[in-house]
């Protein structure tokens, strides 16, 4: 009876779709978690974040490129700015550009989508500015290659084979080209750190790269590298949300086994 009621609430008010109220409640709860931990971070409470080897390796990769006198290649994926992974990649690029500027290491950023070009240029420029070296910024470091997936891959492979970067950093959304680029980078002897939330490409990165950042860790890079309290707070909020989801999954499995379906049905999105 309860499940029938929940699933059949009529959309009497034309402005709000009550069939999606479960999504709104979930989003609101998640947002509350984020706000709570941001508040704690602002009050100066220290927030523990576990060590992520792949993220520590970014600075190691930049350092290696500096010692060898070779450039860093940063590949932000092949999707446009409407993909959240590309947004996260641009945030990471700013941090990497700041490191590159500090160590005075050349940075090459090949781009697949033209709309990402000005964003990448701003991110790199911002990084150089943050490092106190705005004059060292080279606007030719950001290069638009091609919209076409494999033309872009061929261009990036060409950069790897000609310019021999010592460090390849691949963060963003990747598809079939991931292994092509990672294997080419491996053949040049570069240290490779990759991160994507596209799970179908993770096995290729795990095999071909020295360090792989898996799924959610891609979105944690900004907070991890900058150690800014508000960003760390959002990380803790996400972790609490994951814990709640785990509890819901276990509870849901137990209730379904007992043939109690209303709990599972509440999460059904129409």
């Amino acid at each position, binding site marked *: 009876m309860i499940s029938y009621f929940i699933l059949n609430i009529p959309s009497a008010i034309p402005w709000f779709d009550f069939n999606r109220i479960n999504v709104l409640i979930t989003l609101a709860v998640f947002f509350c978690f984020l706000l709570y931990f941001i508040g704690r971070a602002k009050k100066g409470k220290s927030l523990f974040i576990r060590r992520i080897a792949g993220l520590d390796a970014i600075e190691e990769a930049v350092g290696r490129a500096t010692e060898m006198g070779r450039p860093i290649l940063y590949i932000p994926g092949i999707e446009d700015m409407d993909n959240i992974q590309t947004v996260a990649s641009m*945030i990471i690029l700013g941090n990497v550009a700041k490191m590159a500027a500090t160590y005075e290491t050349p940075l090459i950023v090949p781009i697949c989508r033209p709309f990402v*070009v000005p964003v990448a240029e701003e991110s790199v420029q911002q990084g150089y500015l943050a490092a106190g070296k705005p004059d060292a910024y080279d606007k030719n470091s950001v*290069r638009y290659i091609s919209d076409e997936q494999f033309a872009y891959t061929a261009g990036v492979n060409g950069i790897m084979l000609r310019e021999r970067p010592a460090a390849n950093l691949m963060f963003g959304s990747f598809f079939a080209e991931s292994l092509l680029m990672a*294997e080419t980078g491996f053949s040049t002897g570069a240290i490779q750190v990759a991160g994507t939330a596209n799970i179908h490409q993770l096995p290729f990165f795990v095999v071909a790269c020295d360090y792989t950042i898996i799924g959610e*860790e891609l*979105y944690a890079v900004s907070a991890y590298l900058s150690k800014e309290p508000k*960003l760390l707070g959002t990380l803790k909020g996400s972790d609490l949300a994951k814990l709640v989801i785990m509890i819901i999954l276990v509870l849901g499995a137990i209730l379904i086994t007992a043939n109690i379906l209303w709990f599972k049905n509440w999460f059904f999105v129409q």
Partner: protein
Amino acid sequence: MRREVPLVICFLLGALFIADYFISNPTFDRIAQTINQWAIIVISFAYVLGVANIARINTGVIKRREKDWVFKLVLLFGLLLMVILGIGWGIREGTVFYWVYMNAYYPMQATMFALLAFFIASAAFRAFRIRSWEAGLLAITAIAVMIGRVPVGEAVWKNFPNFTEWIMDAPQMAAKRAIMIGAALGAISTGLKVLTGLERTYLGGD
């Protein structure tokens, strides 16, 4: 104002599209779709930036006669050729543009894709070196799945394909879903950070 105005625009439009998901009013849907079309039009202007970027960087290399400058010349020639052919005679089937695309670019694309087979073999060779118990488990599971996917698996043991399907449907699916849940939460968190202005790196310098 240079940072505040984009932040406000970002927040308002982000909130609009989130609200569009929950509001079923047709007028509101039309507003959201119109703004989406505006975004597509703005993005299309970015192609001008892309072409300008290619032209600037490659003409610089050609002028300075840097290494492999001839290939940059070929690149610019190809770019110009396709633009002229496309604008002059169209891109539909039967045009010169279409012929060049299908007979030059398409085979090159297929060639790049075909390289994957060799790269997968070399990557697998490195991945399946058994140096630890986890690597051993990976190798055994991968071999079991590969055998179960080919007819010889069923010939060896009639339930091999079912066993392979169980590996893909149970432990593999569980791990994949766990990563997907984490990634989805991270994506929502990043989206909220950008919308609320907590994350401003993409805006550029002060």
